[in-house]
């Protein structure tokens, strides 16, 4: 190679070198450390059936915190009341659904056992709702919450059909799918979800499954845990202690 060709080849290296240098600089300069790292957390909820008194404060708090419509057709969380009679028939109703009108009065002597079951989105680890969303508007975050992007949702309602737990509804104003988010806007700031915050008997336990010291992990250690509809393999992350076999 003669001098002329050598110099010509150098010319290529100068801009190339410049590009490589700037790329290296970008890679080296890190963005400022964000305060909250999603990958350090993995959220779940525990519910102790024997503590729930069915006061419905969790439902009211959730509606206030998350701007859920007031009407009794839309719930991010709700409480069911089970009454198993001595003839083994089961009466179920949603607490507070029909204000003032009790659905069915079961006579004291007919009752075998009776209890309340709070329900909410289970933030499944294998969520069927995420699987079926056509436009990728609902998905699981790294820290274990399943959320809906209401700017992307087209309102096809496939996710609502796919949820085995009835946790989703179509928001009448935004016309997008909506559901419990574990109060994601609260938990990333170290607060508790609204329902957990106001529960008077601590029937709801929110926790970080990745944490070393977590109320939820203790809950899992001390109780026999059940989840709803385990045969559907949705791997729910809402764990129930004392869940009766009649609960669907």
């Amino acid at each position, binding site marked *: 190679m003669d001098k002329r060709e050598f110099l010509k080849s150098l010319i290529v290296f100068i801009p190339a070198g410049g590009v490589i240098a700037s790329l290296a600089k970008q890679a080296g300069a890190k963005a400022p450390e964000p305060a909250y790292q999603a990958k350090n957390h993995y959220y779940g909820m525990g519910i102790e059936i024997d503590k729930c008194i069915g006061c419905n404060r969790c439902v009211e708090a959730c509606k206030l915190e998350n701007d859920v419509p007031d009407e009794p*057709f839309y719930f991010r969380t709700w409480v069911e009341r089970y009454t198993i009679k001595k003839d083994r028939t089961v*009466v179920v109703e949603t607490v507070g659904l029909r204000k003032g009108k009790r659905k069915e009065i079961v006579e004291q002597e007919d009752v075998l056992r009776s209890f309340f079951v709070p329900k909410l989105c289970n933030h499944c680890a294998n969520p069927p709702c995420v699987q079926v969303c*056509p*436009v990728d508007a609902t998905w699981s975050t790294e820290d274990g919450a399943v959320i809906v992007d209401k700017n*992307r949702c087209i309102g096809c309602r*496939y996710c609502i059909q*796919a949820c085995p737990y*009835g*946790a989703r509804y*179509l928001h009448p104003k935004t016309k997008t799918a909506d559901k419990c988010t574990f109060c994601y806007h609260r938990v990333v700031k170290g607060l508790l979800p609204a329902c957990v915050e106001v529960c008077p008997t601590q029937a709801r336990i929110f926790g970080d499954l990745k944490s070393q010291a977590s109320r939820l992990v203790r809950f899992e250690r001390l109780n026999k845990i059940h989840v709803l509809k385990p045969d559907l393999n949705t791997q729910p992350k809402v764990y129930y202690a004392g869940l009766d076999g009649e609960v669907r």
Partner: protein
Amino acid sequence: MNEDLRERLGEMLEQVTGFIYPNEIEIHWSILIVVYPYLTGLVAGAFILASLVKVFNVEEVRPTYRLSLLTALAFLLIAPLPLQLHLGHPLRSYEIFLTPNLTSAMAMFGFVYAWYLMGVLVLELWFEYRRDLIVWSREEGFPMSLVHRALSLFSADTSDAALAFDRKAIQLITVIGIPSAFLLHGYVGFIFGSVKANPWWGSVLMPIVFLMSAIVSGIALVMFLYMVLTPLRGEPIDMRCLDKLASYLFYAVIVDFSLEALDFIHRLYQSEESIHILGTLIASKLFMSLLVIQIFLGMLLPVGIMIAVRLFSLTAELRKLFYFTAIILIQLGIFATRWNVVIGGQLFSKSFRGLTTYKMEVAGIEGLITALVLLALPFGVLLVLLKVLPPWRKAAA
């Protein structure tokens, strides 16, 4: 909140029997989502009928070949409309193509639909009509000559070699087209059949049953159109064609009925937990639409009619009357089938403890009137197609 919606939901809440999850009070997939699989089913069925001619060389039904393709096209063009009207945000529906979730049957269906429309139906129509379009455009005046030349993509080759190529291309497309048609409507069945949360929908048989009932309704529709259009053109009905169509319809109904009977027997025998609420559902909410309309009027009676036609040698006039009656009953039955799947699947609670009601609006974007208009629109489109691409017009050689 919309006053009308609040009132309707409030009324429905009063009529719930047993227990439903509180969010289940709203029936999410309305009559529009009943119309949609009905329309796509007709597409698949009409195409399968067309493929009988080209792949299986059933010459008797050739008079309906082009009609079947045009029918499939007309219905395929209108099929996305009920979906769009039903969405909460129809203007965002392009997201299905831009950022599809690959695990979603609904998203993948968008691509299947696009493939079937462009890669199968339109392509086959083009190859079928190409030569005729060229010939017609030479004999016509403005504007039709320009329309036809444009539709032929300004093609000019009418040599025998080109025609042979056309025929081979159609064969190839139809061979690919049959599984594509299966995929098109099977996918709609899969959208329901893959929902494990709903035991009325979630079944391996669902795509198959959807497809067979689609074939039944498609053949019946083409028969109907043939029987109506031919006298309007002043031509006699080709009874050989009609009888052949009727026999294929008969086979399809037998297979469809067997599959649905299998589903029923299988459910009863397995007796899973959901059998109780589903039994109550059929006996109470779906009694009319399932037992009376879908099974008795929509399947048993037409099968009886067609057996009668085969057993007794009847005059052509009588056969036409019987066929026409059977066809109308079948269409009613298949529409009821779609209703029973879509609406029926939402009338019972996923807690298996209660039933709710569906209050269909009359007016309103998801109301009865919209549904009827959507059912009528494809016929309007078909009329236009029949004018632009007449199936039976003889072209001078």
